[in-house]
């Protein structure tokens, strides 16, 4: 590490006592780089595994890494906490300006503890932390957003990040998200509810500084080389042009996109919600995270007429991605883009995780069809595939917690299916709702065993893509998932966006690290990755996560995937193998 690199400084904030202090933690960053590696250590240090999910003891940790603000597409921040959704490791990644802002403020990590007596927001300007009153922002529903009000009050325009929660976070919905820069999110596993439990409405971070490198001349030329690859390479094209929704049609063709709670793999009119269709009908603007030339954020311009006033319209800009089109589109049998966008708007306004919300709505629809629940539960709303209006009403009811059923729906599909039945079609993995890939064993194994039960833990869908061409054995699949998740610990400790992973090869990463004062080799990196992965699992298990008895939801075997029908025996053997591999780490 370079001596005067501010990365090693950790900012601690105690919301109860309104105190803050900075600790020098070179040990942490030299041993684990930063990002996910540093965050899990800080979580282990600051979070009693048995603490109550909404108690002041549950900390919020943000960590960035040595490559942030030095190399392009190293644009992500890792958040860690004990998840109100799963009861164990909460980890979520987001871009926006967060990583650059934290680096420019001069920190490698931020640890927030305690609980504010009254609603507050934090304003972090370099070494100063201000505890601002947010009582007026709490419960704000219409008119003006908390983000806009904070923007007006605070300096740092252009470089600051503003992380904030919506009604879902305030109401402690277990899958509430944290939104930053309007369009990016710490989406999964309920960070928004942890904010809410701390009476923390928002966090603003800003700063501006220069950073040291070991050899400036070499840095300059290597930077240009990486930037060229990121902007010119064919590998980046898919994120660049249509964005992630480019996957809708190919995945629909291969039967990999889940439809109607995975009851079927056909949706008539799916081409209307394809990336091509969104681009043609709605694409209004493209934006980027700070320090990323790719600009994968696609904003749809949705023009909505006022019902009561002729010739009055409002145009809203909404960010759409593959996962949202899956969760709030195909999964609900919706095949028109305007309905998808209206649902996206509702989910954004409420501050919910889009993926979990979609899977919950799908479960409610099937449970209603199978008469496990009825109109007394739903307050006379009829959930029906393809009908966005009803889904919007259901979301509003969940947020308001209008009856016991809707309060339960605010706790996720696992909780819902345990109470009301319908476990066979409850698409959850380690209590987290399914991402949008029913591509084969790789995807499902990844969700089940990934430390954060995310499709991005090991990208099993990419392994399935290979298996579509040449079948892979249980051993081969599990080995790939295992090694991929280990390697991804390195990437998310630096913290590079996973979209840049094909450009940032081990060789490239080692050179970048060298310029930031880390002298490592590939073997050293992998050892680090293993240790970080192991630390995460140690924390999960300490929280009560049980590696035994993990299975795929039954529904998965009923609807053929991209590689054809899935076989239970194959799945069980793979589960056993992967379990052993993970145990060998501990």
């Amino acid at each position, binding site marked *: 590490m370079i001596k005067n690199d501010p990365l090693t400084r950790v900012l601690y904030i105690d919301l109860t006592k309104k105190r803050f202090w900075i600790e020098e933690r070179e040990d942490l960053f030299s041993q684990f780089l930063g990002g996910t590696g540093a965050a899990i250590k800080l979580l282990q240090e600051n979070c009693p595994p048995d603490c109550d999910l909404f108690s002041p003891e549950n900390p919020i940790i943000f960590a960035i890494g040595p490559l942030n*603000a*030095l190399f*392009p597409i190293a644009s992500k921040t890792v958040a860690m906490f004990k998840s109100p959704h799963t009861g164990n490791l909460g980890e979520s990644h987001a871009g926006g300006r967060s990583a*650059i802002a934290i680096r*420019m403020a001069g920190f490698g990590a931020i640890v927030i503890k305690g609980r504010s007596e009254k609603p507050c927001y934090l304003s972090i300007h370099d070494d100063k932390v201000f505890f601002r009153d947010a009582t007026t922002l709490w419960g704000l529903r219409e008119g003006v957003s908390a*983000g*806009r009000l904070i*923007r007006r009050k605070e300096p740092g*325009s*252009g*470089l600051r990040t503003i992380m904030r929660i919506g009604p879902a976070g305030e109401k402690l919905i277990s899958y509430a998200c944290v939104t930053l*820069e*309007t*369009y990016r999110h710490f989406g999964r596993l309920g960070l928004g509810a942890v904010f809410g439990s701390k009476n923390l409405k928002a966090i603003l971070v800003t700063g*501006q*500084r*220069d*950073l*040291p*490198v070991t050899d*400036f001349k070499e*840095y*300059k030329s290597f*930077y240009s080389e990486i*930037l060229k690859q990121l*902007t010119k390479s064919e590998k980046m094209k898919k994120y660049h042009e249509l964005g992630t929704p480019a996957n809708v049609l190919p995945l629909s063709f291969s039967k990999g996109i889940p439809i109607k709670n995975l009851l079927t793999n056909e949706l008539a009119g799916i081409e209307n919600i394809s990336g091509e269709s969104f681009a043609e009908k709605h694409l209004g*603007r*493209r*934006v*980027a*995270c*700070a*320090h*990323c*030339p790719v*600009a994968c*954020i696609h*904003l749809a311009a949705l023009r909505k007429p006022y019902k009561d006033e002729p010739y009055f319209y409002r145009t*809203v*800009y909404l960010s759409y991605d593959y996962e949202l089109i899956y969760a709030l589109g195909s999964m609900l049998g919706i095949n028109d883009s305007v309905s998808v966008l209206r649902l996206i708007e509702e989910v954004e306004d409420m501050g919910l995780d889009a993926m979990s919300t979609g899977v919950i709505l799908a479960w409610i629809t099937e449970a209603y069809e199978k008469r496990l629940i009825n109109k007394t539960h739903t307050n006379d709303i009829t959930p029906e595939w393809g009908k966005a209006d009803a889904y919007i009403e259901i979301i509003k009811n969940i947020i308001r917690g209008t009856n016991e059923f809707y309060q339960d729906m605010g706790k996720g599909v696992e909780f819902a299916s345990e109470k009301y039945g319908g476990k066979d079609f409850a698409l959850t993995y380690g209590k987290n709702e399914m991402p949008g890939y029913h591509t084969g064993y790789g995807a499902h194994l990844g969700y089940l065993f990934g430390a954060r039960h995310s499709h991005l833990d090991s990208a099993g869908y990419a392994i399935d893509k290979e298996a579509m061409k040449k079948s892979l054995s249980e051993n081969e699949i599990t080995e790939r998932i295992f090694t991929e998740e280990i390697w991804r610990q390195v990437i998310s400790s630096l913290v590079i966006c996973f979209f840049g992973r094909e450009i940032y090869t081990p060789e490239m990463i080692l050179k970048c690290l060298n310029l930031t004062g880390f002298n490592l080799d590939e073997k050293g990196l992998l050892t680090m990755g293993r240790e970080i992965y192991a630390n995460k699992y140690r924390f999960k298990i300490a929280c009560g996560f049980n590696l035994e008895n993990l299975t795929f939801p039954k529904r998965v075997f009923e609807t053929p995937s991209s590689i054809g029908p899935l076989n239970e025996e194959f799945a069980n053997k793979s589960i056993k193998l992967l379990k052993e591999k993970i145990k060998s780490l501990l």
Partner: protein
Amino acid sequence: MPILVKDSEKCVGCLICMFACNRTHQSAGLESSCIKVRSQGGISRGFTVFVCRGCQDPPCARACPEDALLVRKGGGILLNESKCNGCGYCVNACILDAIGWNSKTNKPVICIQCGECAKNCPYKVLELRAHDKE
């Protein structure tokens, strides 16, 4: 040869130009950049880039009480650091907000019209172009 903002509607807010400017001023990071990129009241409305347009008769140079800013032929200015006392008048005089500030040296960061920002911009928002001959 001033930098022109060709079309700020195309700006995606990636800040690659700011980082490029910083490297031109011999440092990694963002403090030595004289470019600013700001959202137009929320990201949904897009961005505006604030970059020195190399005025022929620059108000920043006129505002300097120490004559530390030399007007270059063809537009743009050069900073004579040994004369600069760090008063910051130049920053206030620039209506484009296109002068940066380095808090360590306590001196302004002035555009040297090198064109690195334009060269690095992935979306051709910026362009280095000679002053139009009238």
